[in-house]
């Protein structure tokens, strides 16, 4: 078996652009769940709105990249308001069901053939990155990083993606240590106590939902920008639950948690996948074929999620006192 190749692929995942995209979405979810205690199971919808906002603004309206980014952020911000205003007064588990339902309904709408001229229906949209990649200052060519090599555009989107991760992390670091952030944690621990102090709990929750949602929409934009394809099937419940696994792996109420969680998660998935593919090719796993190895990947996601919540709900970095699944 080619161990070197498996390790190279694993190292590639650590700085992968999809890893950055998931980490951004997980940072958004950290604001929702980790700091405010909102059970948002519709994070895929926020990322999808970022992606669709960008690609529709570019393709249908011919907007430049910065206006398209604003469109993506605005789309998910508005969605957060629409979703939050009626539902944030509900019990936590109801919020969970409403958010997952809203995300699925949105995905059905994106794949409906009636709006194909705008959304591309189930085929999705593609080739919307021209305005963005025209910013790329890196000269054309292949760039060899030792364990992997990439084109100038692949390098550019990785730099942008991880820069956004750093910016979002620094922003959240100061935000959660501000008086505003302390109120959020107060809401997570005891909503009624915060209300008794005269704080408008509902307004804080809405603000948290909007901020987390817009960060997730950046993740969505990074996700679709690397391949310049945006398909509705990407934004299913699997996307949301992978973000949850990443968040819980790193530690929900931390900033570093989602970042390291995402890197460890994708490295682990890639490593097990390459090793299993190697074993299948060597004939050591006769009951599996190569296609099924990819399916086992998802099985592992579920297993990691279960085991984490049961045995280490605070994740790698979390403080057990800080994590409460209220209700």
């Amino acid at each position, binding site marked *: 078996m080619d161990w070197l190749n498996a390790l190279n692929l694993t190292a590639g995942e650590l700085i992968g652009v999809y890893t950055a995209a998931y980490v951004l979405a997980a940072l958004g979810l950290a604001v929702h769940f980790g700091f405010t205690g909102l*059970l948002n199971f519709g994070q895929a919808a926020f990322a999808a709105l970022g992606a669709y906002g960008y690609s529709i603004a570019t393709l249908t309206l011919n907007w430049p990249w910065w206006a398209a980014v604003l469109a993506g952020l605005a789309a998910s911000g508005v969605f957060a308001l629409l979703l939050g205003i*009626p*539902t944030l*007064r*509900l*019990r*936590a*588990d*109801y919020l*969970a*069901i*409403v958010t*997952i*339902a*809203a995300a*699925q*309904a949105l995905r*059905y*709408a994106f*794949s*409906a*053939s*009636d709006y194909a001229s705008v959304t591309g*229906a*189930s*085929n999705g949209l593609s080739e919307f990155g021209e305005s963005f990649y025209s910013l790329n200052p890196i000269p054309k060519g292949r760039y060899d990083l030792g364990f992997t090599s990439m084109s100038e555009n692949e390098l550019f989107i990785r730099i942008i993606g991880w820069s956004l991760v750093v910016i979002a992390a620094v922003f959240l670091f100061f935000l959660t240590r501000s008086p505003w952030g302390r109120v959020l944690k107060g809401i997570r621990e005891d909503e009624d106590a915060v209300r008794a102090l005269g704080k408008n709990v509902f307004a804080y929750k809405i603000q948290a939902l909007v901020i987390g949602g817009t960060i997730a929409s950046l993740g969505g934009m990074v996700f679709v920008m690397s391949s310049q394809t945006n398909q509705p099937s990407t934004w299913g*419940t*699997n996307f949301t*639950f992978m973000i*949850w*696994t990443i968040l*819980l792996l790193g530690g929900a109420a931390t900033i570093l948690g989602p970042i390291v969680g995402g890197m460890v998660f994708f490295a682990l998935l890639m490593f097990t996948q390459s090793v299993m593919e190697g074993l299948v090719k060597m004939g050591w796993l006769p009951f599996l*074929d190569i*296609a*099924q190895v990819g*399916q*086992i990947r*998802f*099985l592992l*996601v*579920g*297993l*990691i*999620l*279960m*085991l984490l*919540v*049961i045995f280490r*709900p605070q994740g790698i970095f979390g403080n057990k006192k800080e994590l*409460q*699944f*209220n*209700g």
Partner: protein
Amino acid sequence: MNQLTIRKSGVFFALVAMLFALFTAAAPAKAADDPSTYAYTIGGTLLNNDVGVPDVTITATLDAFKSTTKTLEDGSWEIKVPNPGVYTVTLDESTLPAGASMTEKGGNVLQADLTQTDFAAVLFSLGAAQVDTVNWGDQFMIALFAGLDWGLMLALAAIGISLIFGTTGLSNFAHGEMVSLGALVMWVCYPMLGLNIFVSAALAVLAATVFGYTQDAALWKPLRKRRMGTNQMMIVSIGFSIVARYILLLVFGGDTKDIGGVGSPINLGPVMTNDITLYSMLIAAVALGGVALFLTKTRVGKATRAVSDNAALAASTGIDVERIIRIVWVVASALTGLAGVLYGLQFQANWLTGFDLLLLLFAAVTLGGLGTALGATVGAIIIGLVVQLSVLFIPTEMMYAAALVILIVILIVRPQGVLGKKQRIG
């Protein structure tokens, strides 16, 4: 819009293609590079004045994939494709024989939707157009019947979710997998092994029951003992549902299975149905009645309701709460397995069937009022009707979305559900 218009050419009926679909057996699961082993099929019969049109070129495309075929002597054609998706099917008009032309301009490019099934019939229409109408009242009756059928089936599974939530506080996201398991075991026993239909159904229900009992004993009971919070258990159930779903995929394969075959057609006024559907509805109704009697008349049923109401109080009156929870898991998974069997017999099923239905089930349970069995039944029937009747007004692809929007609206307007008791929700 008070009339729905169905255009059909003067020369052929959708029936031809339907028969064709029914005789096309489910293709093997694994897609290798040999096109004859592709799992998905697009097909149809090209007729002009009831006569097959041979040697017409038809092409199916999706992204980079492209496959071309020619119609046979009787006008029939089929194209095997490797992946699900919405294919664009194009008839090359230049290959039509003299005298034949498309009914509509642009009618030579059609869509084949293979996202839900493994066979899509594509009917190109030749010859002069005729307009045939089905009046709105008949459309409504057809949707109403389909909605009732769906509602009864959803109710069986929704009661399971509701009973489990009521007695343990768990919103079980792994519930859909019991529906899938019921349907897929039915597929193994009935069409594959050729067992008697009732024996197969009993085995499928048994499999779901064993699965439910085991998961409670091995997973949920230990977690209850650790006093894990309900939200934490909900996330565990999400992880468990992913694991269970991908195990189903590994064991049964990813293709969509035809389980029930064709029943004998029965017409009830404007509603065209078959004996399988009618028997399914009857069985579902009897099972629902049985549950209602069980919950209201038997000691165990009354104890179940007591535990749902207040577990601590029930325990203090001498009810063995863990025993009740075990019984609830057995009853709930048996009913859910039965729902899977009935769904599989009437429609087709694959490893995602249960997961696709899960949100509708949650919608039904929430609509009726979390934790009340009667509420779940009423909620399920309402959701079934909403889903089917919505087709009269919005695109078919959006019918699940309609139910989810209803769910959101209900939660906002009346969060305790239609039959739920008023209590503090927020």
